[in-house]
């Protein structure tokens, strides 16, 4: 029925939190804190539909923190990772967090790609004075809360893009690909009715006209929808040049039905499930021609660190990491860097050090917005920091089309799509 947004994104999408430093606690756990280790807790659905990827990810992730340890650790202290299986549940996450902070004495936590879980944990970071960095989740509320109660909630850092940032990045890509290249003029926004899309849509409605796309209508679709026919019918009736999407909980059904009904309008924007490499099979190829935003793509060297990381991962597990994999991997590194600069594990000093993060990771350059911003501790986006990518499924492959300097293909649409002129 209704579920927290982005829950169960797809196989690999999920556990990639682990990518950066998961390993079986039983093999590595030590009693209590010692002066020799810095402990980072990792939260995620360690078991379940993604467990077949979880355990290999565990091993691969060891390389991440091992590299730091081999290079001398952090001021002489080695990193130790403690894992917590939270079954994607907010309730279990709160319990696990209480345990992590009070009993296992972790020095920082990397937790969740689900906004519901992050929001449930956020006040606990303040109550238990433990830093939390999130590898996923898009809700703007996470950082808006920090603005409202900085002293208590400053321990939370949003290590992924907020909905508003996502919209801005989609608009930037749309300007190059849709307006400049295809001369499109009108759009209809179609998004699922969920908490994460409220700020997304608000920003879409603002930034699309600014790049030259008139917003004809804004349709919010219930996440429980199974029959998209009336929705596509309505959109088609308004004759837009493009559908700008904001979908995550739904993906397979609208995409498959879009193709079945041969709706002549292309889809462009956020479609979280389309980022999974299995999505082609999931939709029996119906996703051909769909454009979706992501922070990574096959063979795309966003930064010099991207491809070495991806290749090492692929060599070990035979598939690509999901977006959380990249962010969590980076987080282990910049957390380690922050500990180093702080010179201590004191949470307040760690917060100060993290705020000054300037780290080139696998998805771009990581910098956090400051205390005075309306979204403190959110990631900065832009050409100098993080831009994301715009990819399109073509012939079973995810091809990157934007930004131009890392593009490896050109726009290509199925026959039933009509570009430009009246639909």
């Amino acid at each position, binding site marked *: *029925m209704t579920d*927290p947004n982005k829950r169960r994104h797809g196989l690999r999408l999920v556990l990639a939190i682990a990518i950066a430093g998961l390993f079986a606690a039983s093999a590595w756990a030590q009693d209590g804190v010692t002066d020799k280790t810095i402990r980072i807790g990792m939260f995620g659905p360690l078991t379940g539909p993604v467990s077949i990827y979880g355990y290999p990810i565990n091993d691969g992730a060891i390389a991440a923190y091992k590299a730091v340890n081999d290079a001398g650790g952090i001021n002489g202290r080695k990193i130790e990772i403690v894992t917590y299986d939270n079954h994607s549940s907010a309730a279990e996450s709160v319990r696990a967090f209480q345990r992590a902070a009070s*009993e296992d004495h972790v020095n920082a936590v990397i937790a969740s790609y689900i906004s519901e879980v992050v929001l449930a944990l956020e006040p606990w970071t303040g109550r238990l004075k433990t830093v939390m960095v999130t590898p996923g989740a898009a809700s703007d509320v996470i950082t808006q809360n920090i603005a409202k109660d900085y002293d208590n909630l400053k321990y939370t850092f949003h290590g992924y893009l907020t909905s508003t940032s996502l919209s801005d990045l989609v608009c930037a890509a749309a300007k190059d690909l849709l307006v400049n290249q295809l001369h499109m003029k009108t759009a209809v926004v179609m998004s699922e009715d*969920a*908490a994460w899309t409220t700020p997304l849509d608000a920003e879409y409605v603002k930034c699309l006209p600014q790049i030259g796309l008139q917003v004809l209508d804004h349709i919010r679709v219930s996440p429980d929808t199974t029959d998209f026919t009336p929705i596509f019918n309505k959109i088609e009736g308004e004759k837009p040049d493009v559908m700008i999407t904001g979908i995550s909980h739904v993906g397979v059904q609208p995409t498959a039905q879009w193709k079945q009904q041969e709706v002549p309008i292309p889809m462009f924007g956020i479609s979280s499930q389309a980022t999974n490499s299995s999505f082609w099979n999931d939709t029996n190829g119906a996703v051909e021609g769909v454009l979706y935003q992501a922070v990574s793509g096959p063979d795309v060297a966003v930064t010099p660190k991207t491809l070495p990381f991806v290749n090492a991962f692929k060599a070990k597990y035979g598939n690509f990491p999901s977006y959380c994999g990249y962010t969590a991997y980076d987080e282990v590194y910049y957390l380690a860097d922050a500990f180093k600069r702080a010179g201590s594990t004191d949470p307040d000093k760690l917060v100060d050090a993290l705020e000054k993060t300037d780290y080139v990771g696998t998805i771009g350059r990581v910098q956090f917005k400051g205390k005075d911003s309306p979204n403190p501790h959110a990631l900065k986006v832009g050409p100098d920091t993080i831009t994301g990518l715009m990819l399109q499924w073509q012939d079973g492959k995810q091809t990157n089309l934007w930004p131009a300097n890392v593009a490896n293909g050109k726009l290509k649409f199925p026959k039933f799509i009509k570009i430009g002129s009246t639909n």
Partner: protein
Amino acid sequence: MGAYSTSRILLIALGAIVLASLLPLGVSGYILGLLTIAYYFGVFAMAWDLLFGFAGEVNFGPTFLIGTGAYTAGILDNLYQPPIWICIAAGAFAAVIGGVVLALPALRVRGPYFGLTTLVAVLILQNFIVVDASLTGGEIGLTVPDVITISDARNYEIALWFMAISGAILFALARSPVGLILQASGQDAVQAGALGFNVTKHKLTAFIISAFFSGLAGAMLVFYFGSASVGTLVDITVGVQIIIAAVLGGRRTILGGVLGAVFLIAMSEALRPIGDLANFVVFAMALIVVLLFPGGLFGLLTRSRENG
């Protein structure tokens, strides 16, 4: 019911509670946390058993009452920040009102229709919570600024004694003359009515009591977690787990609800290494108990005649 008398059962239960209250001395905070949730769940199950086991009404939506209580308490805290106990009391009160609102149409229908009504109630509540996101936090949940305490041991003791007292009240009620009338109405409403009992009034009473405890426990849970969400308190799956806990524990036993809740949570933990398959196994075990031991765990323990 069984070979044990009421006072004997209460004595054994008291002994178990006292033993349980000593756990924080030696057991890790993690396990205390698990048991805390199990105890609140036990209250949900006991409240459900009163309605189902005794009044004979299959309530598919215990989470309607729980959710109403929990969200009322949570929203109140968010808006006005009154002392926690006021929020909790308000939650229980709201749940009672919800129970009455649900009971009035529901009690006019029988059997599967009743079940359907309660199911629809949950769906409506869920829709309302998700749609009115600015007030309720929507589907990603509501965080409240206050919690009862951040101490594991204290939360545990609070939950334990809350469950013990609720259980005692519910159990006493069930074994009282009122309880007997409820049982009679549940098993043969026509005859009970013929004997002069106002069946509807008694069932409504059962509803109200069930609602009170469900809402109260739900509100307390919100201040334990520090948050409320549809996935933890309202979803049909949660309702199903409560039903399973109660049936597994033994219907019409009240105390069985606690056994069932603790069993379910203990099993889920024990089976954690096999991941999500754990859910499958737990439900399978519950199914086997339902098929082979209709008297439930309580029946097994008291060697009830039902289990042969």
